[in-house]
Protein backbone atom coordinates (compact mmCIF):
# COMPACT_ATOMS: atom_id res chain seq x y z
CA UNK A 1 0.00 0.00 0.00
CA UNK A 2 2.74 2.37 1.00
CA UNK A 3 4.82 1.31 -1.97
CA UNK A 4 1.92 1.90 -4.30
CA UNK A 5 1.56 5.45 -3.03
CA UNK A 6 5.24 6.14 -3.41
CA UNK A 7 5.14 4.83 -6.95
CA UNK A 8 2.35 7.20 -7.85
CA UNK A 9 3.97 10.16 -6.11
CA UNK A 10 7.39 9.60 -7.63
CA UNK A 11 6.87 11.41 -10.95
CA UNK A 12 5.35 14.38 -9.12
CA UNK A 13 8.30 14.49 -6.75
CA UNK A 14 10.67 14.59 -9.68
CA UNK A 15 8.98 17.57 -11.30
CA UNK A 16 8.27 19.27 -7.98
CA UNK A 17 11.40 21.47 -7.80
CA UNK A 18 10.83 22.90 -11.26
CA UNK A 19 7.13 23.22 -10.64
CA UNK A 20 7.59 25.03 -7.34
CA UNK A 21 10.01 27.53 -8.87
CA UNK A 22 7.62 28.06 -11.76
CA UNK A 23 4.68 28.59 -9.42
CA UNK A 24 6.48 30.93 -7.04
CA UNK A 25 8.29 33.07 -9.58
CA UNK A 26 5.94 32.99 -12.56
CA UNK A 27 2.39 32.07 -11.69
CA UNK A 28 2.12 33.71 -8.27
CA UNK A 29 3.42 37.14 -9.45
CA UNK A 30 1.01 37.08 -12.38
CA UNK A 31 -1.97 36.22 -10.20
CA UNK A 32 -0.86 38.74 -7.61
CA UNK A 33 -0.43 41.43 -10.27
CA UNK A 34 -3.92 40.83 -11.62
CA UNK A 35 -5.26 41.00 -8.10
CA UNK A 36 -3.38 44.22 -7.29
CA UNK A 37 -4.76 45.90 -10.39
CA UNK A 38 -8.15 46.04 -8.63
CA UNK A 39 -6.73 47.84 -5.59
CA UNK A 40 -5.32 51.21 -4.68
CA UNK A 41 -2.15 50.80 -2.65
CA UNK A 42 1.03 52.76 -2.05
CA UNK A 43 3.36 49.87 -1.21
CA UNK A 44 3.65 50.93 2.44
CA UNK A 45 0.28 51.32 4.15
CA UNK A 46 -1.06 48.14 5.75
CA UNK A 47 -4.48 48.42 4.08
CA UNK A 48 -5.33 48.15 0.45
CA UNK A 49 -8.39 49.83 -0.92
CA UNK A 50 -10.48 47.76 -3.32
CA UNK A 51 -11.50 49.99 -6.23
CA UNK A 52 -12.84 47.54 -8.79
CA UNK A 53 -12.16 48.63 -12.36
CA UNK A 54 -11.25 52.16 -11.43
CA UNK A 55 -7.60 51.69 -12.34
CA UNK A 56 -8.55 50.32 -15.73
CA UNK A 57 -10.96 53.16 -16.42
CA UNK A 58 -8.33 55.69 -15.42
CA UNK A 59 -5.74 54.02 -17.58
CA UNK A 60 -7.89 53.92 -20.68
CA UNK A 61 -8.88 57.57 -20.19
CA UNK A 62 -5.26 58.67 -19.85
CA UNK A 63 -3.92 60.13 -23.09
CA UNK A 64 -0.36 59.58 -21.89
CA UNK A 65 -1.07 55.84 -21.80
CA UNK A 66 -1.97 55.85 -25.48
CA UNK A 67 1.25 57.61 -26.29
CA UNK A 68 3.13 55.05 -24.25
CA UNK A 69 1.33 52.27 -26.08
CA UNK A 70 2.07 53.79 -29.46
CA UNK A 71 5.73 54.36 -28.50
CA UNK A 72 6.01 50.72 -27.51
CA UNK A 73 4.58 49.50 -30.79
CA UNK A 74 6.60 51.86 -32.97
CA UNK A 75 9.72 50.82 -31.09
CA UNK A 76 8.84 47.13 -31.41
CA UNK A 77 8.03 47.24 -35.13
CA UNK A 78 11.14 49.21 -36.02
CA UNK A 79 13.62 47.28 -33.88
CA UNK A 80 12.30 43.86 -34.91
CA UNK A 81 11.91 44.79 -38.58
CA UNK A 82 15.26 46.53 -38.96
CA UNK A 83 17.08 44.07 -36.69
CA UNK A 84 16.00 41.14 -38.81
CA UNK A 85 16.38 42.92 -42.14
CA UNK A 86 19.96 43.96 -41.37
CA UNK A 87 20.61 40.55 -39.83
CA UNK A 88 19.62 38.83 -43.08
CA UNK A 89 21.60 41.25 -45.23
CA UNK A 90 24.74 40.94 -43.11
CA UNK A 91 24.41 37.18 -42.91
CA UNK A 92 24.10 36.92 -46.69
CA UNK A 93 27.11 39.19 -47.02
CA UNK A 94 29.19 37.12 -44.57
CA UNK A 95 28.04 33.76 -45.88
CA UNK A 96 31.36 32.86 -47.46
CA UNK A 97 33.93 31.19 -45.33
CA UNK A 98 37.03 33.34 -45.14
CA UNK A 99 39.26 34.72 -42.41
CA UNK A 100 37.97 38.27 -42.96
CA UNK A 101 34.40 37.06 -42.59
CA UNK A 102 34.95 35.22 -39.33
CA UNK A 103 36.72 38.29 -37.98
CA UNK A 104 33.78 40.44 -39.10
CA UNK A 105 31.39 38.04 -37.38
CA UNK A 106 33.08 38.47 -34.03
CA UNK A 107 33.07 42.25 -34.43
CA UNK A 108 29.39 42.34 -35.31
CA UNK A 109 28.55 40.04 -32.43
CA UNK A 110 30.52 41.94 -29.79
CA UNK A 111 27.86 44.60 -28.95
CA UNK A 112 25.58 41.77 -27.91
CA UNK A 113 27.83 40.70 -25.05
CA UNK A 114 28.45 44.20 -23.72
CA UNK A 115 26.18 45.30 -20.87
CA UNK A 116 23.32 47.59 -21.80
CA UNK A 117 24.46 50.17 -19.26
CA UNK A 118 27.85 50.58 -20.97
CA UNK A 119 26.19 50.64 -24.36
CA UNK A 120 23.82 53.35 -23.17
CA UNK A 121 26.66 55.57 -21.96
CA UNK A 122 28.59 54.96 -25.16
CA UNK A 123 25.66 56.04 -27.30
CA UNK A 124 24.83 59.00 -25.08
CA UNK A 125 28.28 60.27 -25.92
CA UNK A 126 28.06 59.35 -29.60
CA UNK A 127 24.66 61.04 -29.92
CA UNK A 128 25.46 64.12 -27.89
CA UNK A 129 24.24 67.17 -29.78
CA UNK A 130 27.25 69.38 -29.14
CA UNK A 131 30.29 67.13 -28.94
CA UNK A 132 29.05 63.70 -30.11
CA UNK A 133 30.96 61.82 -32.77
CA UNK A 134 27.91 61.29 -34.99
CA UNK A 135 27.09 64.95 -35.24
CA UNK A 136 30.77 65.70 -35.82
CA UNK A 137 30.87 63.33 -38.79
CA UNK A 138 27.58 64.70 -40.11
CA UNK A 139 28.93 68.24 -39.81
CA UNK A 140 31.67 67.33 -42.26
CA UNK A 141 28.91 66.75 -44.80
CA UNK A 142 27.21 69.97 -43.65
CA UNK A 143 24.34 68.14 -42.00
CA UNK A 144 22.92 68.93 -38.59
CA UNK A 145 23.48 69.35 -35.77
CA UNK A 146 20.77 66.81 -34.91
CA UNK A 147 19.36 66.68 -31.40
CA UNK A 148 19.37 62.88 -31.25
CA UNK A 149 18.18 62.42 -27.70
CA UNK A 150 16.62 65.78 -26.91
CA UNK A 151 14.07 66.10 -29.71
CA UNK A 152 10.69 64.45 -29.04
CA UNK A 153 10.46 63.58 -32.73
CA UNK A 154 13.82 61.86 -32.92
CA UNK A 155 14.58 60.38 -29.49
CA UNK A 156 12.54 57.20 -29.97
CA UNK A 157 14.27 56.50 -33.27
CA UNK A 158 17.64 57.03 -31.63
CA UNK A 159 16.71 54.33 -29.11
CA UNK A 160 15.72 52.10 -32.04
CA UNK A 161 19.15 52.64 -33.61
CA UNK A 162 20.85 51.64 -30.35
CA UNK A 163 18.71 48.54 -29.99
CA UNK A 164 19.23 47.45 -33.60
CA UNK A 165 22.97 48.02 -33.24
CA UNK A 166 23.01 45.77 -30.20
CA UNK A 167 20.86 42.92 -31.48
CA UNK A 168 21.87 42.79 -35.12
CA UNK A 169 25.01 40.81 -34.36
CA UNK A 170 23.07 38.14 -32.53
CA UNK A 171 20.53 37.97 -35.35
CA UNK A 172 23.31 37.78 -37.94
CA UNK A 173 25.07 34.90 -36.23
CA UNK A 174 21.85 32.91 -35.86
CA UNK A 175 20.78 33.56 -39.46
CA UNK A 176 24.27 32.79 -40.68
CA UNK A 177 24.23 29.38 -39.05
CA UNK A 178 20.82 28.74 -40.63
CA UNK A 179 22.22 29.75 -44.04
CA UNK A 180 25.18 27.47 -43.62
CA UNK A 181 23.02 24.51 -42.73
CA UNK A 182 21.17 24.69 -46.05
CA UNK A 183 22.44 21.70 -48.03
CA UNK A 184 24.67 22.73 -50.92
CA UNK A 185 23.01 20.29 -53.28
CA UNK A 186 19.79 22.31 -53.17
CA UNK A 187 21.63 25.19 -54.77
CA UNK A 188 23.15 22.83 -57.31
CA UNK A 189 19.73 21.48 -58.17
CA UNK A 190 18.46 25.05 -58.48
CA UNK A 191 21.30 26.00 -60.80
CA UNK A 192 20.38 23.03 -63.00
CA UNK A 193 16.78 24.24 -62.82
CA UNK A 194 17.84 27.56 -64.31
CA UNK A 195 17.02 29.54 -61.18
CA UNK A 196 18.54 33.02 -61.11
CA UNK A 197 19.79 34.65 -57.91
CA UNK A 198 16.47 36.23 -57.02
CA UNK A 199 14.52 33.00 -57.54
CA UNK A 200 17.14 31.04 -55.64
CA UNK A 201 16.82 33.41 -52.69
CA UNK A 202 13.03 33.58 -52.70
CA UNK A 203 12.34 29.91 -53.36
CA UNK A 204 15.18 28.18 -51.56
CA UNK A 205 17.18 30.34 -49.18
CA UNK A 206 14.29 32.26 -47.66
CA UNK A 207 11.97 29.30 -47.03
CA UNK A 208 14.88 27.34 -45.59
CA UNK A 209 15.75 30.04 -43.06
CA UNK A 210 12.15 30.95 -42.29
CA UNK A 211 11.97 28.83 -39.09
CA UNK A 212 14.99 30.76 -37.82
CA UNK A 213 13.46 34.11 -38.78
CA UNK A 214 10.27 33.06 -37.04
CA UNK A 215 12.19 32.25 -33.90
CA UNK A 216 14.13 35.52 -34.03
CA UNK A 217 10.95 37.52 -34.59
CA UNK A 218 9.36 36.14 -31.45
CA UNK A 219 12.48 36.57 -29.35
CA UNK A 220 13.03 40.11 -30.62
CA UNK A 221 9.40 41.14 -30.12
CA UNK A 222 9.41 39.97 -26.53
CA UNK A 223 12.74 41.66 -25.92
CA UNK A 224 11.56 44.93 -27.46
CA UNK A 225 8.42 44.97 -25.31
CA UNK A 226 10.62 44.61 -22.27
CA UNK A 227 12.94 47.51 -23.18
CA UNK A 228 13.92 49.32 -20.01
CA UNK A 229 17.65 49.80 -19.39
CA UNK A 230 18.40 52.15 -22.27
CA UNK A 231 15.35 54.28 -21.51
CA UNK A 232 16.14 54.41 -17.81
CA UNK A 233 19.71 55.49 -18.43
CA UNK A 234 19.42 57.67 -21.52
CA UNK A 235 16.05 59.40 -21.64
CA UNK A 236 13.95 58.44 -18.59
CA UNK A 237 10.95 58.37 -20.89
CA UNK A 238 11.48 61.91 -22.10
CA UNK A 239 11.55 64.29 -23.78
CA UNK A 240 7.83 65.00 -23.39
CA UNK A 241 7.04 61.35 -22.79
CA UNK A 242 8.21 60.56 -26.33
CA UNK A 243 10.29 57.54 -25.31
CA UNK A 244 8.05 56.27 -22.55
CA UNK A 245 7.12 52.62 -23.08
CA UNK A 246 4.80 50.26 -21.22
CA UNK A 247 7.51 48.72 -19.07
CA UNK A 248 9.11 52.06 -18.26
CA UNK A 249 5.80 53.67 -17.30
CA UNK A 250 4.99 50.60 -15.20
CA UNK A 251 8.25 51.16 -13.37
CA UNK A 252 7.53 54.87 -12.96
CA UNK A 253 4.05 54.37 -11.54
CA UNK A 254 5.14 51.50 -9.31
CA UNK A 255 8.48 52.60 -7.96
CA UNK A 256 8.55 56.38 -8.41
CA UNK A 257 4.93 57.35 -7.73
CA UNK A 258 4.09 54.29 -5.58
CA UNK A 259 0.81 53.63 -7.37
CA UNK A 260 1.03 49.86 -7.26
CA UNK A 261 -2.54 49.25 -8.39
CA UNK A 262 -2.14 51.46 -11.44
CA UNK A 263 1.23 49.95 -12.28
CA UNK A 264 -0.27 46.46 -12.03
CA UNK A 265 -2.97 47.53 -14.43
CA UNK A 266 -0.31 48.48 -16.98
CA UNK A 267 1.31 45.09 -16.28
CA UNK A 268 -1.97 43.33 -17.07
CA UNK A 269 -2.26 45.23 -20.36
CA UNK A 270 1.30 44.24 -21.25
CA UNK A 271 0.54 40.62 -20.34
CA UNK A 272 -2.51 40.63 -22.62
CA UNK A 273 -0.59 42.17 -25.51
CA UNK A 274 2.29 39.71 -25.27
CA UNK A 275 -0.15 36.80 -24.93
CA UNK A 276 -2.03 37.90 -28.04
CA UNK A 277 1.22 38.11 -29.99
CA UNK A 278 2.38 34.73 -28.81
CA UNK A 279 -0.94 33.13 -29.73
CA UNK A 280 -1.08 34.80 -33.15
CA UNK A 281 2.44 33.71 -33.91
CA UNK A 282 2.05 30.13 -32.86
CA UNK A 283 -1.37 29.68 -34.44
CA UNK A 284 -1.01 31.52 -37.70
CA UNK A 285 2.59 31.97 -38.63
CA UNK A 286 3.80 28.55 -37.63
CA UNK A 287 1.52 27.07 -40.28
CA UNK A 288 3.22 29.02 -43.01
CA UNK A 289 6.71 28.38 -41.76
CA UNK A 290 8.59 25.42 -43.06
CA UNK A 291 10.02 22.99 -40.55
CA UNK A 292 12.09 20.12 -41.80
Amino acid sequence: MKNELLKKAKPYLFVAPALIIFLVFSIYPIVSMIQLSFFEWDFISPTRLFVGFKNYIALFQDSAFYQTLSNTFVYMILTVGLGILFGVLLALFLNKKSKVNSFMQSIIFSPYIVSLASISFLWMWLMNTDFGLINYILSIFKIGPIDWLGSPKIALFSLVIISVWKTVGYNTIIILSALQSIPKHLYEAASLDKANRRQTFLKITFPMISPTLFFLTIVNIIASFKVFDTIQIITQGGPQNSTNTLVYSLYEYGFKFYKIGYASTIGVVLLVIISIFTIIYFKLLSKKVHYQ
Partner: protein
Amino acid sequence: MSEIILKNVRKDYDNKSTVIENLNLTIASGSFTVLVGPSGCGKSTTLRMIAGLEDISSGELYIDGKKMNDIDPGDRDIAMVFQNYALYPTMTVKGNIEFGLINAKIPKEEREQLIEEIIDIVGLREYLDKKPSQLSGGQRQRVALARAMVKKPKVFLMDEPLSNLDAKLRNQMRSELIELHHKLNATFVYVTHDQVEALSMATDIVLMEKGKIRQHGSPHDIYTYPKNVFTAQFIGTPEMNIIERQKFEAIATLPEQIAYIGFRPSKVKMYEPTQDQKQKLVFTGTVLTKEMLGSEIIYRVQTNMGVVAVKMFSDINLNLDDEIKLSLSYSSIHCFDENKNRMDILRS
Protein backbone atom coordinates in the same frame (compact mmCIF):
# COMPACT_ATOMS: atom_id res chain seq x y z
CA MET B 1 20.22 12.75 -78.36
CA SER B 2 23.69 14.07 -77.99
CA GLU B 3 27.26 13.02 -77.72
CA ILE B 4 29.44 14.14 -74.82
CA ILE B 5 33.15 14.60 -75.41
CA LEU B 6 35.75 15.29 -72.74
CA LYS B 7 39.09 16.34 -74.23
CA ASN B 8 42.27 16.42 -72.13
CA VAL B 9 40.21 17.31 -69.10
CA ARG B 10 42.05 18.09 -65.89
CA LYS B 11 40.62 18.79 -62.46
CA ASP B 12 42.56 20.23 -59.54
CA TYR B 13 41.07 21.26 -56.26
CA ASP B 14 42.46 24.59 -54.97
CA ASN B 15 45.52 24.07 -57.15
CA LYS B 16 46.68 21.46 -54.67
CA SER B 17 45.32 18.00 -55.21
CA THR B 18 44.76 16.72 -58.70
CA VAL B 19 41.76 14.45 -58.98
CA ILE B 20 41.84 13.99 -62.73
CA GLU B 21 45.00 14.51 -64.72
CA ASN B 22 44.12 13.99 -68.33
CA LEU B 23 40.78 12.49 -69.18
CA ASN B 24 39.69 11.74 -72.72
CA LEU B 25 36.25 10.24 -73.02
CA THR B 26 33.55 10.12 -75.64
CA ILE B 27 30.10 9.21 -74.42
CA ALA B 28 28.04 8.02 -77.34
CA SER B 29 24.77 9.71 -78.10
CA GLY B 30 21.83 7.75 -76.76
CA SER B 31 24.00 5.43 -74.71
CA PHE B 32 23.46 4.42 -71.12
CA THR B 33 27.00 5.02 -69.94
CA VAL B 34 27.91 4.04 -66.41
CA LEU B 35 30.98 5.54 -64.76
CA VAL B 36 32.06 3.01 -62.19
CA GLY B 37 35.02 2.68 -59.87
CA PRO B 38 36.09 2.67 -56.25
CA SER B 39 35.49 5.78 -54.15
CA GLY B 40 37.85 8.63 -54.95
CA CYS B 41 38.38 7.52 -58.54
CA GLY B 42 37.00 10.76 -59.98
CA LYS B 43 33.75 9.42 -61.38
CA SER B 44 31.51 11.86 -59.50
CA THR B 45 33.86 14.72 -60.30
CA THR B 46 33.65 13.81 -63.98
CA LEU B 47 29.85 13.79 -63.82
CA ARG B 48 29.77 17.10 -61.97
CA MET B 49 32.06 18.66 -64.56
CA ILE B 50 29.68 17.53 -67.30
CA ALA B 51 26.84 19.06 -65.27
CA GLY B 52 28.74 22.31 -64.78
CA LEU B 53 28.70 22.04 -61.00
CA GLU B 54 32.49 21.84 -60.97
CA ASP B 55 34.82 23.99 -63.03
CA ILE B 56 37.10 22.27 -65.47
CA SER B 57 40.70 23.21 -64.60
CA SER B 58 41.87 22.67 -68.17
CA GLY B 59 40.68 20.82 -71.25
CA GLU B 60 37.41 20.97 -73.12
CA LEU B 61 33.92 19.63 -72.74
CA TYR B 62 31.52 19.31 -75.65
CA ILE B 63 27.88 18.34 -75.52
CA ASP B 64 26.22 17.84 -78.87
CA GLY B 65 29.19 19.48 -80.58
CA LYS B 66 28.97 22.67 -78.51
CA LYS B 67 31.76 23.69 -76.18
CA MET B 68 30.29 23.80 -72.70
CA ASN B 69 33.18 24.89 -70.45
CA ASP B 70 31.72 28.31 -69.70
CA ILE B 71 28.02 27.58 -70.09
CA ASP B 72 25.86 27.71 -66.94
CA PRO B 73 24.48 24.36 -65.72
CA GLY B 74 20.94 25.52 -66.46
CA ASP B 75 21.79 26.21 -70.10
CA ARG B 76 23.42 22.89 -70.92
CA ASP B 77 20.17 21.08 -71.69
CA ILE B 78 20.89 18.47 -69.06
CA ALA B 79 19.10 17.18 -65.99
CA MET B 80 20.60 15.58 -62.96
CA VAL B 81 19.40 13.18 -60.31
CA PHE B 82 21.37 13.50 -57.08
CA GLN B 83 22.31 10.78 -54.64
CA ASN B 84 20.22 12.36 -51.88
CA TYR B 85 17.66 13.51 -54.48
CA ALA B 86 18.17 17.21 -53.58
CA LEU B 87 14.44 17.83 -53.55
CA TYR B 88 13.38 21.29 -52.42
CA PRO B 89 11.96 20.54 -48.95
CA THR B 90 9.80 23.65 -48.88
CA MET B 91 7.98 22.86 -52.11
CA THR B 92 5.33 20.28 -52.85
CA VAL B 93 5.98 17.44 -55.26
CA LYS B 94 4.37 19.48 -57.99
CA GLY B 95 6.40 22.55 -57.03
CA ASN B 96 9.58 20.51 -57.25
CA ILE B 97 8.75 19.22 -60.71
CA GLU B 98 7.53 22.60 -61.91
CA PHE B 99 10.38 24.79 -60.58
CA GLY B 100 12.68 24.28 -63.57
CA LEU B 101 9.85 24.88 -66.00
CA ILE B 102 8.83 28.12 -64.31
CA ASN B 103 12.42 29.33 -64.43
CA ALA B 104 12.59 28.44 -68.10
CA LYS B 105 9.52 30.70 -68.53
CA ILE B 106 7.32 27.98 -69.96
CA PRO B 107 3.66 29.13 -70.02
CA LYS B 108 1.36 27.69 -67.38
CA GLU B 109 -0.80 25.62 -69.71
CA GLU B 110 2.20 23.94 -71.24
CA ARG B 111 3.66 23.30 -67.79
CA GLU B 112 0.48 21.62 -66.64
CA GLN B 113 0.53 19.46 -69.73
CA LEU B 114 4.17 18.45 -69.26
CA ILE B 115 3.57 17.55 -65.62
CA GLU B 116 0.47 15.64 -66.63
CA GLU B 117 2.54 13.56 -69.07
CA ILE B 118 5.19 12.73 -66.50
CA ILE B 119 3.11 12.16 -63.43
CA ASP B 120 1.62 8.84 -64.45
CA ILE B 121 4.93 7.46 -65.67
CA VAL B 122 6.40 7.89 -62.21
CA GLY B 123 3.13 7.05 -60.44
CA LEU B 124 2.93 10.14 -58.24
CA ARG B 125 -0.55 11.42 -59.04
CA GLU B 126 -1.87 11.16 -55.47
CA TYR B 127 1.21 12.81 -54.04
CA LEU B 128 1.31 16.03 -56.07
CA ASP B 129 0.43 18.22 -53.08
CA LYS B 130 2.62 16.43 -50.55
CA LYS B 131 5.94 17.72 -49.30
CA PRO B 132 9.05 15.57 -49.83
CA SER B 133 9.28 14.91 -46.09
CA GLN B 134 5.95 13.06 -46.29
CA LEU B 135 7.24 10.64 -48.93
CA SER B 136 9.16 7.38 -48.69
CA GLY B 137 12.65 6.99 -50.14
CA GLY B 138 11.35 5.36 -53.30
CA GLN B 139 8.77 8.06 -53.85
CA ARG B 140 11.35 10.79 -53.38
CA GLN B 141 13.51 9.05 -55.92
CA ARG B 142 10.60 9.18 -58.36
CA VAL B 143 10.07 12.87 -57.73
CA ALA B 144 13.74 13.45 -58.48
CA LEU B 145 13.37 11.47 -61.70
CA ALA B 146 10.19 13.30 -62.64
CA ARG B 147 11.88 16.63 -62.02
CA ALA B 148 14.65 15.59 -64.39
CA MET B 149 12.37 14.05 -67.03
CA VAL B 150 9.90 16.92 -67.25
CA LYS B 151 12.59 19.14 -68.74
CA LYS B 152 13.05 16.70 -71.62
CA PRO B 153 16.82 17.13 -71.59
CA LYS B 154 19.23 15.67 -74.09
CA VAL B 155 21.39 14.30 -71.31
CA PHE B 156 20.45 12.72 -67.98
CA LEU B 157 23.13 12.72 -65.33
CA MET B 158 22.68 10.47 -62.31
CA ASP B 159 24.93 10.42 -59.29
CA GLU B 160 24.43 7.14 -57.42
CA PRO B 161 20.67 7.65 -57.49
CA LEU B 162 19.83 4.23 -56.11
CA SER B 163 22.28 3.99 -53.25
CA ASN B 164 19.83 5.24 -50.62
CA LEU B 165 17.16 2.68 -51.47
CA ASP B 166 16.73 -0.76 -49.96
CA ALA B 167 17.87 -3.76 -51.98
CA LYS B 168 14.46 -4.76 -53.29
CA LEU B 169 13.48 -1.28 -54.37
CA ARG B 170 16.88 -0.82 -55.94
CA ASN B 171 16.36 -3.85 -58.19
CA GLN B 172 12.96 -2.56 -59.19
CA MET B 173 14.25 0.93 -59.94
CA ARG B 174 17.09 -0.56 -61.95
CA SER B 175 14.74 -2.18 -64.43
CA GLU B 176 12.62 0.96 -64.49
CA LEU B 177 15.65 3.03 -65.40
CA ILE B 178 16.52 0.65 -68.23
CA GLU B 179 12.97 0.96 -69.49
CA LEU B 180 13.09 4.71 -69.15
CA HIS B 181 16.28 4.88 -71.18
CA HIS B 182 14.60 2.94 -73.97
CA LYS B 183 11.57 5.18 -73.88
CA LEU B 184 13.35 8.53 -73.70
CA ASN B 185 16.11 7.84 -76.16
CA ALA B 186 18.34 10.34 -74.35
CA THR B 187 21.95 9.97 -73.30
CA PHE B 188 22.24 8.66 -69.75
CA VAL B 189 25.40 9.13 -67.72
CA TYR B 190 25.24 7.24 -64.48
CA VAL B 191 27.74 7.14 -61.65
CA THR B 192 27.96 4.25 -59.24
CA HIS B 193 30.50 2.33 -57.21
CA ASP B 194 28.42 -0.81 -57.56
CA GLN B 195 29.65 -2.98 -60.41
CA VAL B 196 26.44 -5.02 -60.37
CA GLU B 197 24.47 -1.87 -61.16
CA ALA B 198 26.95 -1.04 -63.90
CA LEU B 199 26.75 -4.48 -65.51
CA SER B 200 22.97 -4.70 -65.30
CA MET B 201 22.04 -1.30 -66.71
CA ALA B 202 24.81 0.02 -68.90
CA THR B 203 25.20 -0.11 -72.63
CA ASP B 204 28.70 1.28 -72.01
CA ILE B 205 30.82 0.99 -68.90
CA VAL B 206 33.65 3.38 -68.11
CA LEU B 207 35.75 1.87 -65.37
CA MET B 208 37.86 4.45 -63.54
CA GLU B 209 40.65 4.28 -61.01
CA LYS B 210 42.60 7.20 -59.54
CA GLY B 211 41.29 9.64 -62.13
CA LYS B 212 42.16 7.43 -65.07
CA ILE B 213 39.99 5.32 -67.33
CA ARG B 214 41.02 1.70 -66.97
CA GLN B 215 38.60 0.33 -69.52
CA HIS B 216 35.71 1.61 -71.61
CA GLY B 217 33.46 -0.90 -73.30
CA SER B 218 30.21 -2.83 -73.26
CA PRO B 219 29.38 -4.78 -70.09
CA HIS B 220 29.98 -8.00 -72.00
CA ASP B 221 33.41 -6.88 -73.20
CA ILE B 222 34.47 -5.65 -69.82
CA TYR B 223 33.38 -8.81 -68.10
CA THR B 224 34.69 -11.20 -70.70
CA TYR B 225 37.85 -9.42 -71.84
CA PRO B 226 39.15 -7.38 -68.94
CA LYS B 227 42.05 -5.28 -70.21
CA ASN B 228 43.93 -5.38 -66.94
CA VAL B 229 44.03 -6.96 -63.52
CA PHE B 230 42.19 -4.01 -61.95
CA THR B 231 39.22 -4.43 -64.28
CA ALA B 232 39.29 -8.18 -63.88
CA GLN B 233 39.07 -7.88 -60.13
CA PHE B 234 36.65 -4.94 -59.95
CA ILE B 235 33.99 -6.39 -62.23
CA GLY B 236 32.26 -9.61 -61.18
CA THR B 237 31.44 -11.08 -57.77
CA PRO B 238 33.29 -12.69 -56.23
CA GLU B 239 36.28 -11.06 -57.87
CA MET B 240 38.41 -12.90 -60.38
CA ASN B 241 41.13 -15.16 -58.94
CA ILE B 242 44.50 -13.66 -59.83
CA ILE B 243 47.48 -15.98 -59.37
CA GLU B 244 51.10 -14.96 -59.60
CA ARG B 245 53.26 -16.84 -62.06
CA GLN B 246 55.41 -18.69 -59.49
CA LYS B 247 52.42 -19.95 -57.56
CA PHE B 248 50.63 -21.08 -60.70
CA GLU B 249 53.66 -23.01 -61.82
CA ALA B 250 53.09 -25.30 -58.89
CA ILE B 251 50.39 -26.96 -60.96
CA ALA B 252 51.20 -26.14 -64.60
CA THR B 253 53.83 -24.58 -66.83
CA LEU B 254 53.30 -21.18 -68.44
CA PRO B 255 54.61 -19.41 -71.57
CA GLU B 256 57.34 -16.96 -70.67
CA GLN B 257 55.95 -13.42 -70.73
CA ILE B 258 52.96 -14.18 -68.54
CA ALA B 259 53.27 -12.71 -65.05
CA TYR B 260 49.74 -13.29 -63.75
CA ILE B 261 46.90 -15.53 -64.71
CA GLY B 262 43.27 -15.05 -63.79
CA PHE B 263 40.08 -17.04 -63.87
CA ARG B 264 36.54 -16.38 -62.70
CA PRO B 265 35.32 -18.39 -59.69
CA SER B 266 32.31 -19.50 -61.73
CA LYS B 267 34.52 -21.15 -64.34
CA VAL B 268 35.92 -23.70 -61.89
CA LYS B 269 34.00 -26.99 -62.00
CA MET B 270 34.03 -30.19 -60.02
CA TYR B 271 36.30 -32.60 -61.87
CA GLU B 272 34.46 -35.14 -64.01
CA PRO B 273 36.38 -37.50 -66.26
CA THR B 274 35.40 -36.59 -69.86
CA GLN B 275 36.88 -36.87 -73.33
CA ASP B 276 38.25 -33.34 -73.63
CA GLN B 277 40.44 -33.65 -70.58
CA LYS B 278 43.43 -32.24 -72.40
CA GLN B 279 41.80 -28.83 -72.60
CA LYS B 280 41.37 -28.69 -68.87
CA LEU B 281 43.56 -27.92 -65.94
CA VAL B 282 42.96 -30.26 -63.03
CA PHE B 283 43.90 -29.52 -59.43
CA THR B 284 42.97 -30.51 -55.89
CA GLY B 285 42.14 -28.50 -52.81
CA THR B 286 40.54 -28.32 -49.38
CA VAL B 287 37.39 -26.34 -48.64
CA LEU B 288 38.15 -23.50 -46.19
CA THR B 289 34.95 -21.45 -46.08
CA LYS B 290 31.50 -21.57 -47.53
CA GLU B 291 29.10 -18.71 -48.34
CA MET B 292 25.56 -19.67 -49.26
CA LEU B 293 24.01 -17.16 -51.69
CA GLY B 294 20.80 -19.03 -52.52
CA SER B 295 21.09 -20.58 -55.94
CA GLU B 296 24.86 -20.51 -55.67
CA ILE B 297 27.54 -21.14 -53.09
CA ILE B 298 30.95 -19.49 -52.91
CA TYR B 299 33.75 -21.63 -51.52
CA ARG B 300 37.28 -20.60 -50.62
CA VAL B 301 39.51 -23.50 -51.47
CA GLN B 302 43.11 -24.02 -50.37
CA THR B 303 45.08 -25.31 -53.36
CA ASN B 304 48.74 -25.64 -54.32
CA MET B 305 48.55 -22.22 -56.04
CA GLY B 306 47.06 -20.60 -52.96
CA VAL B 307 43.52 -19.84 -51.85
CA VAL B 308 41.06 -19.59 -54.74
CA ALA B 309 37.39 -18.64 -54.80
CA VAL B 310 35.02 -21.07 -56.47
CA LYS B 311 31.36 -20.44 -57.26
CA MET B 312 29.09 -23.40 -57.81
CA PHE B 313 25.38 -24.05 -58.03
CA SER B 314 24.06 -25.06 -54.69
CA ASP B 315 23.07 -28.55 -55.82
CA ILE B 316 26.73 -29.38 -55.24
CA ASN B 317 26.90 -29.06 -51.49
CA LEU B 318 30.38 -29.42 -50.03
CA ASN B 319 31.39 -29.29 -46.38
CA LEU B 320 34.30 -27.54 -44.74
CA ASP B 321 37.59 -29.50 -44.92
CA ASP B 322 36.33 -31.60 -47.83
CA GLU B 323 39.13 -32.68 -50.15
CA ILE B 324 37.98 -31.93 -53.69
CA LYS B 325 39.23 -32.28 -57.22
CA LEU B 326 38.53 -29.34 -59.52
CA SER B 327 38.87 -28.60 -63.19
CA LEU B 328 39.29 -25.38 -65.14
CA SER B 329 39.02 -25.07 -68.90
CA TYR B 330 42.14 -23.47 -70.44
CA SER B 331 39.91 -21.28 -72.56
CA SER B 332 38.63 -19.48 -69.49
CA ILE B 333 42.05 -18.46 -68.26
CA HIS B 334 43.07 -14.80 -68.68
CA CYS B 335 46.74 -13.89 -68.95
CA PHE B 336 48.39 -10.64 -67.83
CA ASP B 337 51.91 -9.31 -68.24
CA GLU B 338 54.06 -7.89 -65.49
CA ASN B 339 52.41 -4.47 -65.86
CA LYS B 340 49.14 -6.23 -65.13
CA ASN B 341 47.84 -5.66 -68.66
CA ARG B 342 45.98 -8.23 -70.66
CA MET B 343 47.91 -10.51 -73.04
CA ASP B 344 45.98 -12.21 -75.78
CA ILE B 345 48.32 -15.08 -76.46
CA LEU B 346 46.98 -18.42 -77.50
CA ARG B 347 45.49 -20.20 -74.55
CA SER B 348 46.87 -23.68 -74.32
